[in-house]
């Protein structure tokens, strides 16, 4: 998958919650190649290491990608002061995205229901009509799941976990794309009180889930993987790790993966960030 390295303009900036920002970046040649689950690697002025940020949404028609990030330290704080019209130096798109029922390269060239994605093969999802997907995530792990869920519209359910009502992000974006949303909060201030696991179990018990996609804190991911395994449903997980080059060369963002009982260190940037749940050594 080809990637680019260049300077691109921010065309939309929104503060979507306290300390959480959304940028839409105009980058036609990046958007053209991008798929949900991939990331962009951003150079922040004054910092040696780039910041890997997952792609939240891709607008193929207008040639832009959207990122949503939280101020975690000095680098993201510096990034957050950029405004519409400012440019961002980024390497993108990077990594492997989610394995979705929809892909990009369409032999028939037809559009997906949302008019932006082009499906693989036919213009309908390649899973059986009575099957659906679940995306499940926590906090700032949620953004990459939006791009994945919106392709499936009403045939996707998003289980979103937050600390409390004031931390809720993107729930309306999922809803606007006709995705069923189940919100959970640790303190019960909105939605179901507790973790994302009980609603995930309930949904999986309906026996119509083709695949689960997850991103969030490690503990949550471990529980999701276990729950999916118990239900016999395939699951893909987007991982995070402190990263260097972003393209696989520097061997910094290692992730232990077990394939056929053999453990090895793969790179989150190049081999991931999306991995098969059952292969993760958690």
């Amino acid at each position, binding site marked *: 998958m*080809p*990637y*680019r*390295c260049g300077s691109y303009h921010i065309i939309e900036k929104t503060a979507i919650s306290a300390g959480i920002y959304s940028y839409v970046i105009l980058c036609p040649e990046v958007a053209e190649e991008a798929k949900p689950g991939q990331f962009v690697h951003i*150079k922040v002025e004054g*910092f*040696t*290491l*780039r910041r890997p940020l997952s792609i939240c949404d891709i607008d193929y028609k207008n040639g832009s990608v959207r990122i949503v990030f939280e101020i975690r330290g000095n*680098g993201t704080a510096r990034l957050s002061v950029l405004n519409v019209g400012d440019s961002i*130096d980024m*390497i993108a798109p990077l990594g492997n995205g989610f394995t979705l029922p929809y892909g990009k390269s369409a032999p028939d060239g037809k559009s997906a229901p949302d008019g932006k994605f082009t499906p693989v093969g036919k213009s309908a999802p390649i899973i059986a009509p009575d099957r659906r997907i679940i995306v499940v995530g926590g906090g700032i792990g949620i953004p990459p799941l939006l791009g994945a869920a919106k392709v499936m519209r009403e045939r996707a359910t998003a289980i979103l976990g937050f600390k409390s009502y004031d931390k809720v992000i993107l729930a309306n974006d999922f809803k606007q794309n006709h995705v069923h949303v189940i919100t959970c909060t640790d303190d019960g201030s909105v939605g179901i009180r507790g973790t994302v696991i009980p609603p995930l179990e309930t949904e999986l018990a309906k026996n119509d889930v083709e695949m689960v996609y997850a991103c969030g804190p490690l503990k949550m991911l471990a529980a999701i993987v276990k729950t999916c395994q118990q239900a016999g449903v395939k699951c893909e997980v987007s991982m995070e*790790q*402190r*990263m*260097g*080059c972003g*393209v*696989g*060369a*520097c*061997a*910094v*963002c*290692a*992730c232990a993966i077990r394939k056929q009982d053999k453990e*090895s*260190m793969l790179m989150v940037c*190049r081999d991931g960030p999306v991995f098969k749940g059952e292969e993760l050594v958690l």
Partner: protein
Amino acid sequence: MNGTVNSQKRDLTVTVAGVKFPNPVIAASGVYGFGEYYTDLYPLNILGGISCKGLTLNKKDGNIPPRVAETPAGMLNAVGLQNPGIDFFINTHLPRLRKGGFPQSVIIANIAGETPEDYAEIARRLDETDVDMLELNISCPNVKKGGAAWGISSEGAVIVTKAVRNATKKPLMVKLTPNVTDITEVAKAAESEGADAISLINTLLGMRIDIKTKRPVLRNNVGGLSGPAVFPVAVRMVWQVARAVNIDVVGMGGVNSAEDAVEMMLAGAKAVQIGTAIISDPLAPLKIIGGLEHYMDVNGIKRIADITGKVQPW
């Protein structure tokens, strides 16, 4: 702008250890893999050369992450020499690298081991390949055995350099660690055992602690500091070593621009290696090569090799 006439007049070639490089900009070991990751951006053959990821006799999985931490004007890493092993390099990476656009650029195999026998065995296997040069890594701070343990004393440098020299006729460059009292002593020791060139500096041992968790940021606790922060240290050491030995010197450590490269060469380096700058900006090698051409044009320099060692100390 740079016209054809000028580019014909400019000579960017340099010679290190008898090996001719098309230009003095080499991708440093550890930031460029085996040349497979940046071909989306530019053809490999724009580089003067590539020093491949440090190779050991057997495959190594490296350290547990996190392996990287940011620092002011730099970074710490503790990768721990993750690599596929020498045989995989010889059978898979090397032929592909040679075919994939490196007929003229120089391929350097960076090698590391726990024992002098390891180093010698790797050198012996490489001796039968078409690799252009060996870079002896006696300076990796991130492995428990071997690595920098051999580079922190003249005795250690003598033992490993001698073992490798006896195992190969390939041009041999020894990469030194700055974590020593007097780097010129180690450089002279390597020279005395037949090293053809010295490259320096590897990373400076450093540490960062997360004050919230009271845990070191790196899972390895400590790691190697690189980037612009170490550049002045590197220039000083290159200058000292270049004056202490008669063999060629390749400078690295925080080189981030063409100006830095010129500075390093004035200090005594025949060529420079680019490491952390590529992690920050994958286009850094192009910008540095272009900047060197510009520097030559502006200053009326016909051969870049002519600036090596031209610092005029007070």
